[in-house]
């Protein structure tokens, strides 16, 4: 009861604080009036009565303060007094305050932006059960150049049967697309075929209905679960959708559920269908397998168990000879491409924040120096050290909080820019797969982060000046009127350290940025082997799966594809068009395998190459140069002898100086028909710009076309008008043919260069910011130091030293410190740039030219920053300078 009353009293004091202050005053004044009334009634005049009452009351101010204190508001009162005093001090020095706030806003803003990205992208938990225990399992066969290849259905079944201890469960899936007809325009949907433990594996709570049951793999079930977005888009979120049917690849599927919206982050798919067991036994390689580790099993342990099992299994399964296993945590695989860029940037913004702090500390120090007299007076009037330190902390925290608020706005802007211009999809290296990046938001976590960073920086740089100031003899400060002589300037060591740190950090950032500039210009100068401009790509999948589909016949597929290309070629504005199985750099599934050369049967080099089916006109459309022989002609169909075109990498690696034309290639896994090499074309970079081209075999499409092809179209007009024409050209052949993955080649190029581009742009911006901050810092310190020596400069001038000699002396002394900073920076840069080597292409992380160039740049900027204040110092009139003390 008592506690509650007390609490209530304090609470009401808190919310009515200012009212309470007035109330106390009113109450005390009323007391005096009451007393005066009594005194007046005893016969004295009102004036005399009031005077008497006041005297009897005692020290009014004293008791008022005591009363406030008794109400429990002591700390708040002192804090608010410190804040008010701090604000007054800061507003009196608007240039100082603005410089400090802006510098901090820059440093804190950059950090909050990067933290938002890192938290949103790297630290974002997968929206599934035990996401941190999921691993990706790949096959690898380094001997034939396969570093990550999806396992086959049989692999999965074997692993599952072995019940490997390390795993709780294994999950199998395959990305694909399905054609939906009978519901508006034909649509190609992004689909996922999954093992039936799907729902349990990810702990999915369906938005509607259910996921599959494990027993549903035993028979062919035509069940489908819809993706949330597709359900919203196509069915407007119809809650009664379960049990309805959907025509997918010409078959009727029953809708049994809808996935939760969050699942899009892992698999942005429209439909999910189950594998049936029969399918699993037949399924070829290139499937995806995830494992969920037991809670205390490490990835290494799991990998060891896995390879043990594989060795045992290899005795029964000869097809797995030479294959090993790659096991990696899913979360890290997904962000493997972007992580190094973000980490390097996180480091860079950290450096910028340190630079900003150094500058503000420097400002605070100078500002504090000018307040030495004030501090001395306060100390001599009985202020404790604690009170002085607290006052400085309050001021620096005020600056930091305002800076942090501005920084938050800056971060809000940059996150907005990221959403507009940042990549939405990133490739997963060596796996022919792309990950959709989660959306990044500035949330409560980021605000807390900013606040924490602001307060931490406020405390750190706020502590420097009072500790330096209080270290000195306050008496002498009082005597000198705050001017002091050189010997007494405290904080000289601190300033030297600040200058060294600034020079060092600026150099590290400039080196990093220069490396990125050189690397990125090399990357952009890479010839991908084709001409990307004005190239449009789109995908066509014939509905071969559907029962009774005419496309089950290879001949019919060939004719249809031929017709598609023919119609598109006749559109005005289309320069040329062709078909290919794989669009270079698009992260399409690579098809790679062994081959043999008939003329060299005993070669012991194991031969492997990328396979590619293409139509006539492909090399012409892509502008891939024909180096030897001929390219495919219309006559290279299945009624004519089998032919093949090879690229120069393959020609060089496997034929060397021999002429490959007229030799025959045999595919051991295929029909064993010898195929004559009729031409050699230029090499193309298929997987990434930075990786060397792989040996490639091109087959004519008409000699056995696949069901899915990409069309590449070189256009001369604007994309927007030609695209509808292409669509209707294809629909004029088959009205039910969906077209999907419509992308321009520059867009595809943009995705594969996104990480180095982000690092390139941001690191450059940060390096410029760092250089400017360092220049300001060095300038500030030098002009302060020089200002302290005005008298000395005056003496030197009087005794006949030339201004130039004095300038060169001052600059020499100042640059000595910056040179230490630059040397430290070189060492740091040399140690740190190796961490960005995965972002670099065609340039070593310790490129000497860049190190020299960056040193020169930072050195020149630092020298200018020293020269300007020195030059100003000698312009002083010697007489004025001498009279200063």
């Amino acid at each position, binding site marked *: 009861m*008592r506690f509650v009353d007390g609490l209530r*009293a304090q609470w009401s004091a808190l919310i009515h604080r200012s009212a309470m202050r007035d109330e106390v005053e009113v109450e005390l004044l009323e007391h005096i009036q009451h007393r005066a009334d009594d005194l007046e009634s005893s016969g004295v005049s009102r004036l005399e009565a009031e005077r008497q009452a006041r005297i009897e*009351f005692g020290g009014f101010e004293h008791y008022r303060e005591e009363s406030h204190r008794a109400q429990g508001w002591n700390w708040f009162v002192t804090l608010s007094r410190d804040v008010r005093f701090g604000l007054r001090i800061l507003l009196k020095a608007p240039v100082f305050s603005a410089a400090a706030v802006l510098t901090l806003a820059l440093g804190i803003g950059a950090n909050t932006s990067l933290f938002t990205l890192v938290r949103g992208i790297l630290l974002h938990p997968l929206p599934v059960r035990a996401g941190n225990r999921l691993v990706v399992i790949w096959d690898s066969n380094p001997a034939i150049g396969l570093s990550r290849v999806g396992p086959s259905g049989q692999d999965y079944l074997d692993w599952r049967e072995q019940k490997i201890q390390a795993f709780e469960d294994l999950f199998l899936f395959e990305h694909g697309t399905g054609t939906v007809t009978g519901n508006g325009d034909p649509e190609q949907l992004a689909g996922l075929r999954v093992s039936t433990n799907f729902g349990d594996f990810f702990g999915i709570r369906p938005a509607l209905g259910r996921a599959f049951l494990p027993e549903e793999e035993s028979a062919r079930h035509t069940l489908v679960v819809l993706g949330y977005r597709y359900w919203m888009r196509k069915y407007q979120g119809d809650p009664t959708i379960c049990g309805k049917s959907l025509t997918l690849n010409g078959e009727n599927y029953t809708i049994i559920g809808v996935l939760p919206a969050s699942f899009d982050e892992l698999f942005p798919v429209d439909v999910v269908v189950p594998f049936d067991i029969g399918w699993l036994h037949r399924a070829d390689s290139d499937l995806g397998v995830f494992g969920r580790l037991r809670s205390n099993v490490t990835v290494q342990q799991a990998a060891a168990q896995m390879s043990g099992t594989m060795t045992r299994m290899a005795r029964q399964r000869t097809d797995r000879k030479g294959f090993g296993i790659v096991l990696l945590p899913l979360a890290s695989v997904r962000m493997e491409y972007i992580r190094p860029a973000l980490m390097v940037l996180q480091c860079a913004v950290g450096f910028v924040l340190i630079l900003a702090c150094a500058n503000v500390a420097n400002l605070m120090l100078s500002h504090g120096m000018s307040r030495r007299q004030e501090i001395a007076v306060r100390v001599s009037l009985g202020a404790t050290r604690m009170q002085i330190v607290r006052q400085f902390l309050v001021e620096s925290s005020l600056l930091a909080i305002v800076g942090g608020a501005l920084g938050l706005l800056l971060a809000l802007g940059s996150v907005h820019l990221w959403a507009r211009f940042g990549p939405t999809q990133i490739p997963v290296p060596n796996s022919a797969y792309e990950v959709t990046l989660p959306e990044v938001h500035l949330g409560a976590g980021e605000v807390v982060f900013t606040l924490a960073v602001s307060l931490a920086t406020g405390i750190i740089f706020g502590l420097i000046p009072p500790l330096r100031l209080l270290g000195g003899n306050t008496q002498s400060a009082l005597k000198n009127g705050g001017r002091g002589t050189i010997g007494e300037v405290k904080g000289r060591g601190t300033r030297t350290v600040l200058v060294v740190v600034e020079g060092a950090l600026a150099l590290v950032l400039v080196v990093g940025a220069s490396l990125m500039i050189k690397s990125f210009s090399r990357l952009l100068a890479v010839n991908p082997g084709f001409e990307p401009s004005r190239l449009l790509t789109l995908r066509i999948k014939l509905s071969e799966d559907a029962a009774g589909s005419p496309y089950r016949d290879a001949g019919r597929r060939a004719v249809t594809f031929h017709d598609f290309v023919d119609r598109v070629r006749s559109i005005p504005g289309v320069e040329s068009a062709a078909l290919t199985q794989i669009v270079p750099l698009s992260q399409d599934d690579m098809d790679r395998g062994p081959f043999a050369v008939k003329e060299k049967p005993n070669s012991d080099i194991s031969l492997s190459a990328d396979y590619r089916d293409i139509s006539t006109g492909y090399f012409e459309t892509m502008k891939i140069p024909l180096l030897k022989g001929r390219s495919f002609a219309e006559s290279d169909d299945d009624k004519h002898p089998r032919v093949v075109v090879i690229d120069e990498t393959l020609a060089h690696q496997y034929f060397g100086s021999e002429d490959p034309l007229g030799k025959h290639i045999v595919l051991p896994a295929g029909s064993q028909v010898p195929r004559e090499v009729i031409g050699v074309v230029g090499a193309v970079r298929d997987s990434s710009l930075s990786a060397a081209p792989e040996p490639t075999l091109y087959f004519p499409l008409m000699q056995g076309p696949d069901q899915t092809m990409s069309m590449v179209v070189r256009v001369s007009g604007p994309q927007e008008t030609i695209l509808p024409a292409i669509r209707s050209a294809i629909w004029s052949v088959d009205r039910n043919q969906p077209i999907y993955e419509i992308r321009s080649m520059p867009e595809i190029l943009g995705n594969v260069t996104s990480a180095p581009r982000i690092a390139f742009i941001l690191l450059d911006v940060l390096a410029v910011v760092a250089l400017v901050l360092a220049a300001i810092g060095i300038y500030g310190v030098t002009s302060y130091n020089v200002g302290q020596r005005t008298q000395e400069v005056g003496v030197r001038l009087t005794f006949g030293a030339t201004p130039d000699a004095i300038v060169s002396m001052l600059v020499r002394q100042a640059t000595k410190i910056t040179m230490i900073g630059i040397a430290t920076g070189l060492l740091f840069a040399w140690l740190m740039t190796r961490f960005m080597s995965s972002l670099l292409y065609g340039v070593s992380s310790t490129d000497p030219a860049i190190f020299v160039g960056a040193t020169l740049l930072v050195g020149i900027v630092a020298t200018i920053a020293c020269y300007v204040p020195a030059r100003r110092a000698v312009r002083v009139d010697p007489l004025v300078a001498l009279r200063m003390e």
Partner: protein
Amino acid sequence: MPDQAQLLPGTLDLLILRAVSLGPLHGYGILLRISQISGEALTVEQGALYPGLFRLVRQGLLKTKWGVSDANRRAKYYELTVAGRKRLQDETESWKRLAAAIGSALSVQPGEL
């Protein structure tokens, strides 16, 4: 006023509680009541009353209400809370015990032991 007793530390709180226990009073009224019930033997500097009052309010022993005094002035009235009443009882008893002990100690005559 040479015969006025100095206030022992802690006794002001007890006197305030006692004064208020007889009915709600404003600050000046409390002062008058204390001087009245102590036979004008005990006085405090008038302003010193207020920190004590605010402390008791914060401790939840008193509650307050603004009102109008007999002199037709604004005044804040103090009243005991339940906890305040209990505290007054406890303090009164322990004070009486102490006073009795001190009193008997001081009234011992030589030879009585």
